[in-house]
């Protein structure tokens, strides 16, 4: 689509876009350096450490009156450490995959912030500069123009992801070699070795929840109110406050059906517990999907109907 090319060219003609990309890359490069530096001091005598951990934890379990969730954490840790000793699997310091995993976590947070500013500005900036008039007096239906902006925003976000992933893979390989870690997990009372890459991509795809919902929401506010600052502020406010709000309202049934409960899909990932008991990934996806549709429909209707007076 030529319109997407247009938006893409405009996006990269702005300095702020390049700043975002560079910041993004720095956020991968700097931690890599720091982690490599501290890595040198890790100990070699892991068996002793493991024994120590097991003894400490067993003592804690005996002495303290623990509630269910913290208790299970100690039990599982002990199981895993025992498994390590039995199978002679050394715990890993930093490896290529754990580094990439950490960086993906950082990246997805930063990308959410960046992508919100882009999504919020890509429509509203056309209004504030008056260029919207030039754009909407062309033989192109309005919804196509809006769609091209949405698509461009998403492509930009995915580009940032791609850049972060590739760079973290390269740096990880350079600093720590291509050896993988052996993450262990307790699933249904059994210690299991998880596949590094499937868990990496699980995390990657689950981060799309907040990625897309933030884009759609910022896009909605930016289009309706024609103000990028409002859209950025509101979207980031909601995404940072969502955990607290959800916890406060967690005893009400309706909160299960509000999208902010499900924005962070990682809570449904392996090894995590959801914020609201009884919610599942399926429910989360469904709720997000329904809200996404609502947001987009409102955005497109408003944009199509509105008289341009800018």
């Amino acid at each position: 689509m030529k319109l997407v090319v247009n938006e893409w060219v405009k996006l990269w003609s702005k300095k702020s876009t390049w700043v975002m990309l560079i910041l993004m890359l720095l956020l991968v490069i700097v931690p890599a350096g720091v982690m490599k530096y501290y890595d040198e001091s890790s100990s070699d005598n892991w068996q002793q450490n493991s024994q120590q951990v097991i003894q400490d934890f067993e003592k804690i379990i005996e002495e303290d009156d623990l509630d269910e969730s913290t208790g299970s954490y100690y039990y599982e840790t002990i199981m895993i450490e025992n498994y390590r000793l039995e199978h002679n699997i050394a715990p890993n310091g930093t490896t290529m995959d754990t580094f990439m995993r950490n960086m993906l976590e950082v990246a997805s947070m930063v990308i959410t912030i960046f992508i919100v500013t882009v999504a919020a500005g890509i429509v509203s900036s056309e209004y504030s500069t008056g260029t919207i008039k030039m754009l909407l007096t062309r033989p192109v239906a309005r919804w196509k123009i809006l769609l091209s902006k949405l698509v461009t925003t998403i492509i930009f976000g995915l580009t940032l992801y791609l850049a972060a992933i590739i760079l973290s893979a390269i740096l990880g390989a350079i600093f720590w070699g291509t050896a993988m870690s052996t993450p262990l997990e307790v699933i249904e009372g059994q210690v299991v070795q998880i596949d590094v890459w499937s868990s990496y991509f699980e995390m990657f795809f689950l981060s799309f929840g907040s990625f897309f919902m933030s884009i759609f929401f910022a896009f909605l506010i930016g289009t309706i109110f024609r103000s990028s600052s409002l859209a950025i502020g509101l979207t980031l406010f909601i995404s940072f406050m969502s955990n607290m709000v959800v916890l406060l309202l967690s005893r009400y049934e309706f909160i299960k059906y509000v999208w902010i409960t499900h924005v962070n899909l990682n809570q449904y990932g392996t090894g995590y517990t959801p914020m609201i008991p009884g919610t599942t990934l399926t429910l989360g996806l469904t709720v997000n999907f329904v809200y996404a549709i609502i947001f987009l429909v409102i955005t497109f209707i408003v944009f199509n109907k509105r008289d341009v007076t800018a």
Partner: protein
Amino acid sequence: MVQPIVQVKNLSKTINNKRIIKDLSIDFFPGQITGFLGPNGAGKTTTIRMMTGLMHPTAGEVIIDGKSLAKNYEAAITQVGVIVENPEMYKFMSGYKNLQHFARMHEGVTKGRIDEVIRQVGLEKRIHEKVGTYSLGMRQRLGLAQALLHRPKFLILDEPTNGLDPAGIREFRMHLRHIAQTEGVSIVVSSHLLSEIELMCDRVAIIQNGELIDIKEINASESSTYYIEAEPKEKLMQLLDGYTISANENGFNVEIPKQQIPALLKKLASEVEVYAVQPNNKTLEDQFLEMTGGGAIDEISR
């Protein structure tokens, strides 16, 4: 009768229960430059926005080249080139990239056409600089360039000479004339600058309070009074007996058909010293003020 390229039919717009535009109808013909004149707040810009699809009319329709703007938007708007108020371009891109950007939104605008338009508006030298560095005059030129890219049959310009210097205005005017004559483009220019409309346009549509109150061809001489100055005055008065006259400065305004002037002059020349004879053209300004009652913004009637 030439087919109109654009027909505006019974256009109305109501905003917050106020009728901004009331039942406005007007046709635009190829090769003709129409001035859109009206006091501030008369509804010029609103009408233009409805003709470009930026605003949706409450009632009525706009038909461009036989296609309804509301029902067949993409096909209708293809024929239209627009500058609404200041041509707002993307400041962070070069003029050339701006043109490329808009060219991509039309069918069949080639690279050659972009270069041709740039040459037409005389921007070759600085087209690769960022628009942010342009003067207002250059931005107006770029604005014209983007409006011409796709060879529209209908060109709508809202306050196009805003911020141009006199030389720039003159050049702009010549340019519009040229396009109208050679390419048969129908042009609408809105402005509240009367003199400018007078110089630029073939006809004027006067709007007030959202209503079209008059359409006039310009240059059809309306003048039938002539100013005559001669000494001695008393003698002149006697000689002008039979004509309706009124005193004006050092002479008289005489109501007389143009054909009779030579004869009158011969008669006068032998009796009095004639210093001046000139036609009293009512300027557009006079007419405009007459019609709009001083150009005050009337309370928009409900």
